């Protein structure tokens, strides 16, 4: 393939991305801010630039895997579902799970992904009666340094950072824990069906997320619209604030930082319709 072809593909990616974005936005997604949208597009573009041999060889994309007839510990019947990509070559079949996660995070949490991919592998092998040779995660989130290079729009720096980037993470193929994972899965199904929805403990909110420097409360709760009505988050705020009195007003005016505010305004102002056209 020539370079011109490559460029044509990148152009196609941009077009496809734009179409998908518009369609999904109209189907009820909210608009993404310009920056966020660009970073979503970049994930696809750099996936293509970095892992083209993988992309070019995918034989089955977005395969729906389902494992029916599972029984929970409390006797409920259910089906497990997942989605993967597959590459079949002459002598080798690999299963990929593409995630918009950060590759360092994935490397730091291999056991978590190991559980998931091995369940998927189990389903695949059962369904297709075909051995799998390898399982891997593709983590498409751009590393900070690559993002920086893109921001500076410095080609040499970008090339160097692409080389350093390791988005493909092998996940040990190990079917031993499958039964255990499935039984944990069943317990979660029981919990959901019996309506157990209490928030996690204060300790969990205060604790750091695996492989990350930031706490659950900051990473997850701060982005959760349900935090205002959440007893756990309320406890967290109380316990970490010296002025208990200002609790309420802090709560209520917590719309995020200036950057977030700009993002919010900007994402939406671009779509601000002509007020005159509103129906009154």
């Amino acid at each position, binding site marked *: 393939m020539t370079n011109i072809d490559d460029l044509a593909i990148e152009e196609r990616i941009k077009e496809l991305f734009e*179409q998908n974005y518009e369609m999904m936005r109209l189907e009820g997604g909210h608009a993404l801010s310009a920056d966020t949208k660009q970073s979503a597009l970049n994930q696809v573009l750099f996936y293509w630039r970095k892992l083209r041999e993988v992309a070019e060889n995918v034989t089955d994309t977005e395969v729906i895997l389902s494992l029916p007839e599972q029984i929970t510990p409390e006797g409920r019947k259910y089906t497990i579902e997942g989605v993967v990509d597959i590459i079949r070559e002459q002598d080798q079949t690999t299963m990929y799970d593409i995630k918009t996660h950060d590759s360092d995070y994935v490397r730091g949490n291999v056991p978590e992904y190991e559980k998931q991919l091995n369940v998927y592998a189990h389903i695949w092998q059962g369904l297709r009666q075909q051995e799998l040779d390898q399982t891997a995660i593709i983590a498409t989130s751009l590393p900070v340094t690559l993002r920086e290079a893109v921001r500076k729009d410095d080609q040499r720096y970008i090339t160097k950072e692409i080389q350093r980037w390791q988005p493909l993470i092998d996940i040990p193929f190990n079917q031993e824990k499958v039964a255990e994972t499935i039984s944990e899965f069943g317990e979660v199904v029981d919990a959901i069906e019996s309506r157990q929805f209490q928030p996690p403990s204060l300790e969990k909110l205060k604790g750091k997320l695996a492989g990350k420097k930031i706490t659950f409360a900051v990473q997850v709760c701060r982005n959760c619209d349900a935090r205002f009505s959440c007893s756990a988050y309320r406890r967290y705020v109380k316990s970490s604030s010296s002025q208990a009195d200002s609790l309420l007003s802090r709560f209520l005016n917590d719309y995020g930082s200036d950057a977030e505010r700009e993002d919010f305004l900007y994402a939406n102002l671009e779509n601000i*319709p002509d007020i005159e056209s509103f129906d009154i």
Partner: protein
Amino acid sequence: MSINLEKLWQLTQPEPFEPNLNQKRAILHTDSPLFLTAGPGSGKTRVLLWRSLNLIVFHDVKPEEIFLSTFTEKAAFQLKEGLRSLLGLVTNLTGKPYDISKMYVGTVHSLCQKLLTDRRFLELGQRSPVPVLKDELGQYFYLSRRKYWQTILEKADFDLDIAQATINQFFNYNSISKHNAVSNCISLFNRFSEECLTPEQILARIQTTPVDDPDTFTNLTKLYDEYLRSLQQSNPPQADFSLIQQYALNFLEQSPHSGNIFKHIIIDEYQDTNTIQERIFFKLASGFKNICVVGDDDQALYRFRGATVENFVQFPSRCQEYLNCSATEIPLNINYRSRHQIVEFYNDFITRQNWRSADGKGFYRLVNKDITAFNDDRTTSVIASTPAKPDLVCEEIALLVRDLINSGKVTDPNQIAFLYPSLKSKQVERMIDALEDVGLKVYAPRARRFLEVEEAMAVFGVYLLIFGKPVRGDFRGADYNDFHQWLNNCQEIAQNLIKEDKALKAFIEEKQEEINTALNDYRILSEVAIAHKWDKTQFYDPHTMKRLLYSARGLSNTAQKNLGNVYFDRLVKQKLETKQPLTLSYVINASTSVDWSVLDLFYRLCIFNHFKEMFDQAETGQDEGPICNMGLISQYLARFTDEYTNIITAQFLEDNRFQLTLFMGFLYSLFRRGETEYEDADDPFPRGRIPFLTVHQSKGLEFPVVILGNPRKDPKLQRVEEIVKPVLDRQGEPLERMAEFDVMRMFYVAVSRAKNLLVIAHFKGPGQKLTFPFNEMLNDRTIARIPDFDPHSLPEAKESNDDLPKNYSYTSDYLLYQRCPRQYMIFRKYGFVASRSQTMFFGSVVHKTIEDLHYLLKAKKGTQNLD
């Protein structure tokens, strides 16, 4: 291990399946068209299930080569799960696995959408643009935007001053309301699309056939043309529910492969298909000619959605016409559902009508169905109340229901269903009151408006306090008065809330203050622009303008911060660099808008106890009613932000425009359309409550006890039928008979839902009337009456056990729940729409585009290999 169908039937759980002769014939029929006429309770779902299994297991048909359309998503899910489980049984015996994830099972609409992205119909590497689907509410808002509505009216040569009156007049309404005009147009447009009529065809027919008021008809057709055009030309193209089918048909007509993708086309509830659907099905079947339809003309309910029962009744001749071959007809006429008397009752009911066609040569229905009950229990199973005034009848029925529950003949109150032609009626209210008087609980989500549930009134009451209440204008009809009454009630509820909760009061005042500040800042900045003769549409030049705006007298800190912060500077610079500089108007709007959307406001409200308690109750599984409604409120608010805007600028707030848009534009529309309460598709009949359903809702269901709460529906022909009749290709049932036929079929469906007992309310007295033939049948002296009926004579109802296995996704269920069960509950289980979180959307776009990229590369490789 070798297996065959008989062996599998024997192994079926919980008991072996013993198909009757015709069921067996139907299951084994595997090529050429098949016409299954299936009476109520005749086991057709089972037949479809086993027929599919037969094709897959014994005839080597791949699941993705089967197209199976059902009437509801739930029915589709049931079929799919049933099939999965039977195939699992086969796998256990033979070791051969089956994967049905690519099989087409679903409603026509969802399958049409699926078709449009199915790459098997395309040449390698092609991609067809899929239109964005507008649901009914979206269609309504799209058309009723004032500017859009006026533009298309003008283009269609309507006189704007009288357009609405003219349109409504054409539909026999004496009204100038836009809401009515838009609703009327929607019903007509949908019908045009469903009948597969193009504007050109309609216009040509208006020329050649006599129609009422040809001028208005012509203009309405032009209006339809404009509507179609604007949807097609938007980017990406859009489609309503009827047009998505049109897209699918066009798509199939362009593909050379259309007839050769599916080896089997199977359509359930075929009596309720419309013209465009018929064409799609026959197109798909054109290659292999294996089309199997199942239905019952006596249960046709959806004329108002363009369905024509003739598609079913004349299926054999349609096969000749489209496929040039004949269909095998197999009747499924043994009823496994109901006791003997019930079956006799509805056989008698339907044949009292004269179905003979006008020329006397045939019938408008399939006659001689000869439906027989499998159950030979001939004891009393159809009873009527003592003929009396409504209050007394309701009381008598309520007491009977209480006795039935106490006698243990039903295992739960949800096994007794009340069916009505419509739930918005006085008779329904009376009945609910009577049941509640004897201490019973009912579940009637469609009996009242969603906006009238407590949670909605409290939330919108608070919004009224914040944004102010619209002033009531002159009398404009009953809806308008009711809506203002609703506004008053909401406000009162909210006022009571702030009496109890000082913090909520403070919150509301703070929001009002923010609005005032924004408005004030907006005025100040606009004056600066005027003073310097800047036009608001000109580009913002930070060097000359920023300082002047920033230091304007009286400008609030908030606006100053907005104008002056580094992020905003960065944005301005970025836009300048990319040659898309911001306009002055943008800058003023951005710095004078409040920093929350209606959805943000909603989530923040939930900090206050009245609302927070609803979440607390759901977390521990105590009561999920309130949270379901809160979830729905969030969906409607998200709808508002989608239809209008997410951001509330001061410009929008000025002159109460925002207030009017939210209340008199958006909520008033929801109110008038009568949008109903939350219903859980997975759990439609909560335990402990007696369900009230419309007959339409009861389609395909069965209940141990059915109570027909109001055996009266006056036949009324829908105007749209009269309008379209002259321009249609095929002439079906005559106009003057349609309405009475439809009433017959509707009640036929109602009475055939009953398994063990059918109870009919017999109203008598001034103003009371029974619909034919109930008047004859209930006045017949042989019908048993409630006082003579002994509940102990009833067989015990079995615990209904259709607890289907549910699908759980590894990432969006298991992992999400593990992260935070509460967050899972709110956003995943109860469908709250997040206000700011973008992670889901982000991930979907990335995945979808990578999927497309993979297909693109695969196609490229394919062509290279050919080279």
